[in-house]
């Protein structure tokens, strides 16, 4: 724990503070706190409508105002962030999980299977990820789970490529040779010996991937594809709010700000972690 806090102090050698890490931890902590508290408690019922309290501005009673149906925006944001974070997490689990397995196997074994897989992955990587997920959404249909799976699949190629590179680098190293001489099976070498050595690289790609997943989910749900009402995620809420930009700007701005903070927090965190290593 002490070691953890020392990361935020000024580096004695360079006199520099890891501002990115500090900001990242604060912002991400705030967002996660909001999501976790939202599991048990929201100031108002996020789906309860109130005709007498439509489109109110920011006040102590409603810290982000109310929407066009009189629902408390902050409560809805707490609820919506949960869905956005859940979909992004699921996306990364699928993308990193399957991507790692594909990358590990192709990188380790090589050969014709590697050649074919990499051709497919290169072709997939050439396409904008938004388009790729739209293709999968149109195949699976719209909805929360479908979007999570679609996004997950479109995230597989980048993870596979990164892990494959790591395996190519590691597979002829001495420790792998030694393990092989000891009679370890290929599967054991892949998952017990090499994989732990790729965790560092994998972690920073997970950070970047999570950001992209949040942005992609927000984009898809902004387009009306994705979590369906009443389980609105942040992107959908933003597109609903856009219509009231002129009479109640704070409604749109507060939702947009939460999305920006979510992405910013993680990108600062990723940058901060990168700087610890250096």
């Amino acid at each position, binding site marked *: 724990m002490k070691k953890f806090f020392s990361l935020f102090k000024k580096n004695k050698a360079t006199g520099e503070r890891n501002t990115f890490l500090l900001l990242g931890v604060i912002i991400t902590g705030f967002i996660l706190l909001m999501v976790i508290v939202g599991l048990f408690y929201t100031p108002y019922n996020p789906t309860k409508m109130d005709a007498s309290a439509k489109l109110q501005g920011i006040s102590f009673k409603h810290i982000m105002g109310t929407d066009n149906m009189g629902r408390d925006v902050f409560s809805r944001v707490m609820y919506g962030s949960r869905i956005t974070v859940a979909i992004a997490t699921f996306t990364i689990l699928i993308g990193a999980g399957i991507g790692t397995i594909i990358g590990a196997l192709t990188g380790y074994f090589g050969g014709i299977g590697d050649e074919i897989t990499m*051709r*497919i992955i290169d*072709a997939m990587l*050439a*396409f*904008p990820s*938004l*388009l790729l997920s*739209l*293709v999968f*959404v*149109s*195949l699976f*249909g*719209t909805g929360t789970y479908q979007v999570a799976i679609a996004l997950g699949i479109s995230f597989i190629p980048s993870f596979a490529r990164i892990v494959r590179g790591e395996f190519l680098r590691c597979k002829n190293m001495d420790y792998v040779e030694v393990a092989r001489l000891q009679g370890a099976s290929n599967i054991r070498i892949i998952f017990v010996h090499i994989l732990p050595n790729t965790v560092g690289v994998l972690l920073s790609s997970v950070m970047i991937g999570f*950001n992209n997943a949040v*942005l992609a989910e*927000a*984009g898809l749900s*902004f*387009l*009306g*594809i994705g979590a369906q009402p009443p389980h609105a995620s942040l*992107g959908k809420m*933003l*597109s609903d709010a*856009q219509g009231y*930009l*002129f009479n109640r*700007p704070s409604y*749109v*701005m507060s939702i*947009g700000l939460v*999305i*920006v903070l979510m*992405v*910013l927090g993680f*990108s*600062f965190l990723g*940058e901060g972690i990168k700087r610890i290593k250096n």
Partner: protein
Amino acid sequence: MRYILKKVLSMVLTLFVVSLCVFLAFSLIPGDPVTRMFGTEATPELIAQYREKLGFNDPLLVRYFRWFFAFLQGDMGTSYDYKMPVAGMLAEKIPITLTLAVMSFVIMVIISIPLGIYTAKYENGIIDHVISVINQIMMAVPPFFSGILLTFFFGVILKIFTPGGFVSYTKDLEGFLKYLILPAFAIALPKAAMATKLLRGSVIEEAGKDYTRTAYSRGNTTNAVLYLHVLKNAMIPVITFMGMALADMVAGSIVIEQVFGIPGVSRILLSSINNRDYPVVEAIIMGIAIMVLVINLLVDIIYRIIDPRIEVEE
């Protein structure tokens, strides 16, 4: 020449694979397209008759080649919902989406090249730090939100932009282009931020090399060295990014068109996805796929022009 030929050949091959994947994916989805066409009016006889007439009883590969060659000739099939040729539905929309994407690309290039060189020139100066923080924030703002922010700033506060005031390019070309400026900025900003960051790093790296010192010692000014000597070499990694960014911008305009109410390809694509109007979705995806492949080919050719050392990979 051999290099370009090889790249073109590989592009055609990739196009073939992509089109096969797209076709198979949409053919293997559960649900019969003919039943879908008639909706509630479907009778078994009618369905059987139309399945034969439209060739759905042929083997998958035969159908694929028929579809592929028709596509190459500009026949993209018929929409289930609108009962009209997809090519006709898209013909008026494609120029709008393309104009938007190209405009965003131009804005990205105009912003990022001078800014990237400037921040590299004054590395670790105050402005460099300020811009790097702004860049970090820009990358976190999704284009659809920056679109809303721009609408708010220019439409509500400054009142020099009318949201929803889109005019077609056939009626008023100038008004059309003017309306697209803000959406183009919304798409371009995050990409410009990334390109600036990338170019800055690349210029700093190149500036430490021998040829830069030679250029200085021949009496060039700093700007002449940076723009005439360093930029060309520093652009090599940036061009890859910009090529990908252009492809991303075409996809990104799909979202931005919704924000600004621009009647481009976006609206058709979304309604066809929601209504499972597959011929339309297929056509749009193939269209974008072809565009992406052509962009990649162009990037490869530009590479070769900038750096003739790049050889054909054997």
